[in-house]
């Protein structure tokens, strides 16, 4: 909004996920499913056709017993900013069913606009986008728990994590009622952040120095929004996706697993590719 942007700097919602704390328990996944009316089938063990906006990957250091180490990595949509808002998926959608907001930094997905070409899924290196291969069917009676805040999707469209944008919408409603426009930090938190029993996820405005996520990440706008925190890394930072989900780990092998490196390259210390 023209007169809105003058109200302050645009927001850039993002996350910091502490992998030292994450236990891989799956509460974030289920919180997301429950919050966002995500359907399920009788068999969800075929993970390549299982809709999980939030998915937990299991990372391993590849060593043998007893030196093996594992780490869990929850992967929501990374809400890539790319270069100037041209995230990998948004720029390829032929029908403008997904866009990047300069106001919130959120990559949207409008399922009623999507006609299911799946190009965005091919473009997303994080596999954060899911296709509705089937009609969503809730077992008899279970449709009662569906939330009116998120529209259930139909067969044949792509869906993905929205950073629980509807919570922002609702928080903004309340802000209007209270005579304001800005949504306070605690009024807009994603379902996964709220649920995480380990407190591993921190969500907020990366542009706002008062927000915890900013304080943890300390993004460096002069260096492609890289974190100034030594424990922090982003997934596939080198591809220039410029994601807004930062991960923290004290283990070097975990940080190295977040990106592709040639054998001689040092973790987290390679120049960013320009394009």
């Amino acid at each position, binding site marked *: 909004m023209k007169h809105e942007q003058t109200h302050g700097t645009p927001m850039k919602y993002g996350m910091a996920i*502490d992998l*030292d*704390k994450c*236990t891989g*328990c*799956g*509460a974030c*996944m*289920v*919180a997301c*499913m*429950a919050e966002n*009316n995500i359907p*399920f089938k*009788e*068999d*969800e*063990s*075929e*993970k390549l056709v*299982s809709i*999980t906006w939030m998915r*937990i990957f*299991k990372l*391993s250091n590849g*060593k*043998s*017993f*007893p030196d*093996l*180490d*594992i780490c*869990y990595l929850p992967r929501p949509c990374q809400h890539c900013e790319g270069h100037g808002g041209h995230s990998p998926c948004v720029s390829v959608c032929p029908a403008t069913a997904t866009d990047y907001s300069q106001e919130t930094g959120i990559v949207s997905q409008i399922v*009623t606009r999507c006609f299911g070409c799946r190009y965005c899924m091919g473009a997303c290196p994080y596999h954060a986008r899911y296709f509705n291969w089937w*009609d*969503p069917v*809730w*077992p*008899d*009676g*279970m*449709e*009662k*728990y*569906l*939330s*009116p805040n998120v529209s*259930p*999707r*139909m*067969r*044949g469209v792509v869906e993905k994590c929205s950073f629980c944008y509807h919570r922002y919408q609702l928080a903004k409603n309340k802000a209007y009622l209270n005579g304001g426009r800005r949504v306070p930090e605690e009024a807009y938190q994603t*379902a996964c952040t*709220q*649920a*995480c*029993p*380990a*407190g*591993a996820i921190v969500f907020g405005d990366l542009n706002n120095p008062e927000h915890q996520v900013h304080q943890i990440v300390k993004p460096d706008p002069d260096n492609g929004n890289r974190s100034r925190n030594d424990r922090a890394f982003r997934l596939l930072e080198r591809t220039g996706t410029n994601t807004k989900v930062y991960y923290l780990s004290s283990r070097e092998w975990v940080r190295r697993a977040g990106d592709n490196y040639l054998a001689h390259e040092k973790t987290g210390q390679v120049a960013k590719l320009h394009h």
Partner: protein
Amino acid sequence: MKVDRRSFLSFVIGGAAGTALSPLPWKLMDDSSIWSQMWPWTPVPPDGEVVYENSTCSLCPGGCGISVRKVDNRAVKIEGRPGHPVNDGSICILGLSGLQMLYGPTRIKSPMKRIGERGEGKWQKISWDEAIAILTEKLTDIRDKGEAHTVAAIAGSDSGTVPALIRRFMTAYGSPNFMRSPSQRDVDELAVKALFGGDGRTGFDVENADYILSFGSGFVDGWGSPVRMFKAASLWKEKNITVVQVEPRLSNSAAKATRWVPLNPGTEADLALGIAAVLVDENMLDTRAVSGLGSWKNDLLAAYATEKVSQTTGVAAGVIVDLAKGFAGANRPLALCGRGKGLVSGSLRETAAVYLLNALSGNINREGGMWAMPEADYIQWPDVATDNLASAGLVQPRLDGAGTGKYADARYLTNRLADSVNGGGPYPMQALLVAGANPCHDLPDTQRVRAAFARIPFIVSFSSFQDETAAMADLLMPDHVYLERYEDVPIGAGLAQQMIGLSKPVVSPQFNTRHLGEVLIATAMAMGGSIANAFPWDDYETCLEETLAEKWDSLMETGVWVQADTEPVADTFQLAGMDAPAVQAEGDVNSFPLLLVPYDAIQLTSGYVGEAPFMIKAVADTVIKGTDGFIEVNPQTARAAGLAEGERARLTTPRGEAQVCVHLFEGIQPGVLAMVRGLGHTAYDGHLAGKGVNINELIGPVEDPSTGFDAAWGIRAKLAKA
């Protein structure tokens, strides 16, 4: 005029032009796309006013506070309740899935009686009056024959008013056979009695400890009060505290620990005593709270020399000394025990050995230490005035043998139930009431449990769900689920505080179900006499309100009641239980060269309630794929058996065999196989039934000779290509 081809063509062209200029094609194109945007068969959730209802989750013993979001009359989401002393806003995967249980199709929707063969699944809906009449008639019949003691009841827990009502009913009726589902709580209570000399449980001040030595306790796999433990584990990370996880498999807890010490399965007690021996040897002790240590020190040193322990446990001697020094060097070290989630009663020797470590470091009943918590005592009902029939029944020995002879210290030996019913007991069982438990799936050696159930002439299930035990029942009297009912939830689960939570009806009952408390009161009334007199309440809510007395108002308001100061059971730790023999895995090494150990996963409930679809969806494809269940195998072991990742194999134990898939995992010792506990359901619906293997079909109870509890930590096994 003649309509020739050209005229017709012209008509068609004119029609096409006219159509193109009319809204018909364009509007149809637009509308059909709009139709496709909201197909009539895609549900549209109705909007409405949003309210949040506070309650307490009772799906596990954790006792978390929940806040249920409702839109008009529908519950749409369960969230953690901010500010709650247990979980402060967080919630676990099970708690989040509650609504799928509430609204799920596997609920038992009304009272039913069996009309087909047992287990055939043929039921007839009946009214509550009829159900209560059937139950009353059956129980009266048995009692009138002077055989009241042949009726048994299994409950999920024995704390809180509802289990107390069951127990009261059994007492008034005249049966000593009240049982509860086995768990680590069994051995913990017994250990508190043996070591501290009173009734109670242990509590662990994990938040304030500064060194954690966990003997296989899955502190982030569902041990204790799960959400509280998750939060503690994060706190440990923040405070940079050393956490040592001792277990044969790289569990999630082991992966979260600062150090994982793999050891030979089943040798935890040896390691704990080995560490104790180092502490004694190096005099790194604080013996203020320990009595009777004197001469025992030498026995300990002799029996648990570091080298010897190293051999038994497979842990290097240096590591043992290291652990001892780390433990002794910390200000507030804390040792935990109970494998995984603590679903097995466990061995007294192991429990006592770990508690001894806490005692030797002087952290009993101290900040950051282990507390000997007394039992909750808020249920103060007058004693039951039993009539002659009841009194005669009550003096009979228990079917499971608990409380007498060599099992004098055990309260419940539910693990012995199957053998007892199958002919080993003092008398046959004539009727069984099951509430909040699913023994036909959860008890080890399920085949034998099911055989026992087949012999029981009359089984009543109060389950809300179509579980394996309900499938074996003759009468179904479904309870409300926790979101539809009032209930007090005493929170034990390792907390170093006394707390009571309150479950409140968040939504009105969805089906024709009835509160178990109400059913018990109604049945008692119907049976009349002294039984009716034992239940002086009009309804359950009155009973609950009267019982909670002054706590009621604050519970209604805040949902949780915390006792300010609790007097510990005792401050002195007496040495006991540690000289019992070690519990060995069943089976012969030559025919079964490998060891199968169960492990617990937070994504599975491993308890009374079946996993909701959401939970199963979060299970990795290396645990279940399709209907196949996996076992974790070290690649070396798999190679030796000629098995590759994902390959099907036949797993055989002395108790049974199953087809499994192989998952290669470097996080497990060669020669050991691990299988998750909780799968292999035969009841419920297609979202759960038939997935994976129930490890209880492969493993049987192994009695701890000193207590009678099941202390099986694994079983010998062999693996071959399928």
